[in-house]
């Protein structure tokens, strides 16, 4: 891996007695689309806030080589984020939003933002309070995607949006924005929605990183076998990390076993990110 965009070592954050992040270490390289995935309260948002310099923390963290605690103002030149799409102020007009960002951000391309907006049905004089939630998202997205940033952080970007809009959001992100120079970090708990666009996954649970792998690695590392009866029992001897029953058959997920080794027990396939997520969350629950 070349110089990481994000380099976290021993990231720890406590709110009183509650531990939000405990000794979390991970790296994110350039040109990756990383899914930071975990159940509610796992520490996703805390991790993002630490990366964006919005909250104090202990441990070592470098984002684009900068310390978000000390150099936040410098960092924001190269980092963009959408915390929750509906947070544009109600009084802001579409043209004011463009003018403001144009003046404060040296890497904002107004023509590009206007091109995005042209696809949406937005008039320059409209205020945010007059727009539907989907339109506000389009405005916010147009502003952020017109900024030439090295790291884009999206925290539950599609929360509360309908399916059509969510699909359009990710299509725009992938087709019009992403390139080899840019890195995108997405948190969501709707894993199915993002799994096809991720290059890496970072599972986080109870403040700890439980899996950090590229999606290619996932395909070689994890195998799911669906078996029944004696074959299921035989497969179980190879210590699956997770199993569940479906229509009388047992689906088991193995870590680090080859497909050839497992094919004898039953039908095999590559587990989805969603399956792996559930497997890791449940095995963590059993372990504790």
């Amino acid at each position, binding site marked *: 891996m070349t110089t990481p965009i994000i380099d976290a070592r021993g990231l720890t954050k406590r709110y009183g007695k509650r531990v939000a992040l405990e000794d979390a270490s991970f790296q994110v390289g350039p040109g990756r689309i990383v899914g930071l995935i975990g159940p509610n309260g796992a520490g996703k948002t805390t991790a993002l806030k630490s990366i964006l310099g919005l909250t104090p923390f202990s441990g070592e963290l470098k984002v684009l080589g900068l310390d978000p605690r000390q150099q936040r103002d410098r960092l*924001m030149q190269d980092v*963009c984020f959408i*915390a*929750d799409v509906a947070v*544009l102020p109600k009084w802001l007009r579409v043209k004011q939003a463009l003018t*403001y960002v144009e*003046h404060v951000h040296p890497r904002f391309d107004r023509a590009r933002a206007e091109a995005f907006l042209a696809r949406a049905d937005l008039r320059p004089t409209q205020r945010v309070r007059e727009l539907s939630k989907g339109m506000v998202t389009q405005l916010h997205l147009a502003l*952020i995607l017109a900024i030439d940033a090295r790291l884009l952080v999206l925290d539950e970007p599609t929360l509360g949006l309908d399916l059509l809009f969510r699909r359009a959001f990710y299509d725009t992100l992938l087709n019009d924005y992403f390139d080899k120079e840019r890195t995108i970090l997405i948190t969501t708990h709707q894993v199915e929605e993002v799994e096809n666009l991720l290059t890496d996954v970072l599972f986080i649970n109870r403040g700890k990183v439980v899996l950090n792998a590229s999606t290619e690695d996932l395909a070689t590392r994890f195998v799911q076998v669906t078996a029944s009866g004696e074959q299921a029992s035989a497969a179980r001897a190879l210590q699956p990390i997770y199993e569940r029953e479906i229509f009388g058959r047992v689906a088991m997920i193995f870590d680090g076993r080859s497909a050839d080794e497992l094919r004898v027990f039953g039908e095999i396939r590559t587990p989805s990110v969603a399956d792996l997520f559930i497997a890791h969350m449940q095995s963590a629950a059993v372990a504790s």
Partner: protein
Amino acid sequence: MNKYWILVRREYWEHRALWAAPLIVAALILVGSLFGTASFSLPDSVDTDRKRGLFGLISWGLTVPFYITMAIVLLFYLLDSLYAERRDRSILFWKSLPVSDTATVVSKFLVATLIAPLAAWSLGALTSLLSLGILGLRSLGASSNNSVLLWDTGLWLHVQGLILLSVLVAALWYAPIAAYLMVVSAWAKRSVFVWASLPPVLLIVTERYAFGTGHVQTFLRDRIVGFAKLLTGDASGEAGRSIPSVGRLFESFDAVHFLNNPGLWVGVLLAVALLAFAVRLRRYRDDT
């Protein structure tokens, strides 16, 4: 420079009262000058010297409604300055752009202490000019032996100059109050007005019951209404209760005396400390 100017424009976009209130005052004064009933004749005993005094008084008096209005508008503006963005949850949008907390806090402070008052001064001077012109034209039409009409450009400029000086002096004098309101605005989770009033009220009541004295009350009263006393260098006068006559105010206005007041500089230092505290509060203020 462009970047800082946009921060000021942002404030005027959000807080429309900043420009709407003085414009309404100007409109009311002009409408009053056009259609108000007025007597333009004076008793013969009123000589030119006293008419000059009257002219000065009117030139000054026409601008007073602007400052009363702006005091009220700015009180609420300051209380809202760092609270509104947390209430409407837009703070993370603002923080996603490369504008430092310091730049944000200082821009809002300067709007309240300097930019809005200077705008009020310009509009006040213009309104005074227009209104006097209208009244002058109307008095021409009125038949009278001893017309109130008198135009004295030198005196008008002198009066407006003194008002401008007072505006600049007031910026320094009221700086700690403005900064205090911003700290409360950055800190309070709700009911900003109540939180801003609580500490002074508690201090005054506690002092009264504990020691039977009223030093805090006197101190605050001197700071809030003792401004005229400071301007005129009237050490013995009860400036808070009796506003000195305009003629005396003009004559006794003493900038040197004002700048020699140690209380002023203590206040300015306090304002700087409070602003630094407000910046710190906004840095990690996290309600989302």
